[in-house]
């Protein structure tokens, strides 16, 4: 008896079937296209690294969540936990050969030994862009410009890039007389606002600072108004960089409506040193879909040379969830747009010539692999959601025509072979130049 292994996959990992993959590939393609439009090149690093490359870079929590094991040669290895640390390791090893400033994008899988939950997986994709080797604020504006370009390209119209600034927050905490050693705690408490609400934050802050300080702090972080109104009201603190950033964004074509100066935004402020970003999509409850900021020293754990940079990570899975909720992925079908049927052996060469003609024009076309009943071939087309089926028999070969069956309506048309490409380009709504 054969030994059959019950098929199963690890918790927190996923299989993606052809329909899901079509959507994922589409979204990934659009994101990649936009990154490249802005002049970013990509790199790839190994999925497994030496454990000590990865460990100790994300704090206690990160260490626990990193997949580590001994390989067959007894070496301690780890799966990459994010793309930033391997990137830093790569830059430290290769910077003399890299163009500087260096603009790179990276889209790959990362692994975390986290407890799986809704929207939380053990294996998932990250899409990062970073500009390193410059401290010019134009890099910050460009990151905002790319974010807007990506989400606009994906068809998402209503989203906000929340922005804040570490230097600005520092100047407030210092003005309020909060000792430096408590500042990180205060920022972490503010960061929990979305999760535990104002009351929860109040409770937590009470244990760190006194009542007056807290009220003064709340006056700042709960300030309302437009970006400009907030900047005017807070001008006694260090708002220069935010002001300059907003001006550069305008010059770079980032519409004001996408930017929201959010004084409550404290995510990652213990790591970031300048501007920070967090993107939310209006009316979609998936949390932050993209986030990042300016950091001062990317490679400090790997070399003495300093690289300041700014970058963001796009949450791929959350972006997919948001797009599905907005109905933006409904039209994504499998790859084949045209099925050429096999009617009889005599007309097979004609059918094949039609097939190659369309394939050369980059219209996704397949010919049915075997000679079977037309009914079976149409069933196949239905199952693959192929919108157009072509039938080319002897009669059509003699007339140099093709019968097109439109699967959606069942309508059938005979058109000249010479018009086929133009007809299908129109029917498939392919852009005409």
């Amino acid at each position, binding site marked *: 008896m054969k030994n059959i292994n019950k098929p199963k996959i690890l918790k927190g990992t996923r299989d993606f079937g052809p329909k899901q993959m079509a959507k994922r590939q589409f979204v990934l393609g659009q994101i990649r296209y936009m990154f490249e439009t802005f002049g970013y090149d990509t790199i790839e690093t190994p999925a497994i690294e030496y454990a000590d490359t990865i460990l100790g870079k994300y704090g206690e929590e990160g260490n626990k969540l990193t997949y580590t094991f001994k390989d067959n040669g007894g070496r301690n290895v780890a799966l990459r936990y994010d793309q930033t640390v391997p990137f830093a390791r790569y830059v430290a090893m290769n910077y003399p050969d890299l163009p500087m400033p260096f603009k790179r994008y990276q889209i790959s899988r990362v692994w975390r030994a986290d407890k799986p939950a809704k929207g939380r997986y053990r294996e998932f994709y990250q899409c990062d862009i970073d500009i390193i080797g410059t401290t010019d604020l134009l890099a910050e504006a460009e990151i905002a410009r790319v974010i807007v370009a990506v989400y606009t390209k994906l068809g998402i119209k209503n989203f906000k890039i929340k922005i804040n600034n570490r230097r600005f927050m520092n100047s407030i905490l210092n003005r309020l007389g909060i000792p430096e050693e408590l500042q990180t705690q205060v920022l972490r408490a503010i960061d929990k606002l979305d999760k535990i609400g104002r009351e929860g934050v109040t409770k937590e802050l009470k244990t760190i600072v006194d009542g007056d300080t807290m009220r003064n702090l709340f006056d700042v972080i709960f300030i309302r108004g437009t970006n400009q109104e907030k900047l005017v009201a807070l001008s006694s603190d260090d708002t220069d960089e935010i002001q300059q950033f907003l001006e550069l964004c305008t010059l770079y074509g980032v519409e004001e409506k996408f930017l929201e100066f959010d004084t409550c935004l404290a995510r990652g402020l213990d790591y970031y040193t300048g501007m920070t970003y967090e993107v939310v999509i209006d009316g979609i409850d998936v949390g932050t879909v993209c986030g990042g900021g300016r950091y001062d020293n990317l490679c400090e754990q790997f070399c003495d040379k300093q690289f300041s940079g700014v970058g963001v990570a796009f949450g791929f899975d959350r972006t997919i969830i948001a797009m599905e909720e907005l109905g933006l992925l409904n039209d994504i079908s499998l790859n084949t747009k045209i099925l050429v049927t096999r009617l009889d052996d005599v007309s097979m060469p004609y059918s094949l010539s039609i097939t190659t003609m369309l394939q050369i024009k980059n219209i996704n076309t397949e010919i049915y692999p075997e000679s079977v009943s037309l009914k079976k071939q149409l069933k196949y087309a239905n199952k693959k959601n192929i919108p157009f089926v072509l039938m080319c028999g002897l009669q059509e070969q003699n007339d140099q025509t093709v019968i097109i069956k*439109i699967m959606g*309506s069942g309508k059938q*048309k005979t058109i000249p072979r010479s018009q086929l490409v*133009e007809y*299908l*380009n*129109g*029917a498939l*709504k392919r852009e005409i130049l």
Partner: protein
Amino acid sequence: MKRIRIAIQKNGRLQEDSLSYLKKCGLKWNKMNNGEMIIPCTNKNIDLLFVRHGDIPEYVKWGSADLGIVGENSLYERKDTYVVRKRLGFGRCKLVIAVPNDSPILNITQLEHERIATSYPRTLTVFLKRKNIQASPISIHGSVEIAPSLGLADAICDITQSGNTLESNNLRSITTILTSEAVIISNDSADLSWLV
């Protein structure tokens, strides 16, 4: 002082009306010789540039002409944007979709998956997209009206002034996509503040 160039049709349906419009504006020029492309005005700092109809937007776009007189309909075929300075009231026409008299197609929703022959594929594509109709524009340059009788299309999308051409080719209009007239255009980046 810089001379202003106005591009107008070398020949075509708008030429006569364009010239009489410019005359009415007070421009004077010497009798034209055949084949001459640039005619200077004798009383103003203006040159008339005679070019092929389809080239007028091109000349304006590149700044070789400051202004141009064109049929509004031809602008919708182009990706570039122009500033319409003035509507001129002549050269009126309509862009329509028409089908053979004996066609079962009565309204635009029945155009689904049909072929529409046209010299205005871009305008037609935008129209179809807006109406959410999936039909195929078939690009033909000129003599669009005979495409259905040759079996090349199920409908046409073409310019009509009087409707006579449609009628004599046994076609009937089922919808008007747009109405058009002659307009004066400039490049949208052109600085014409000096032109008073």
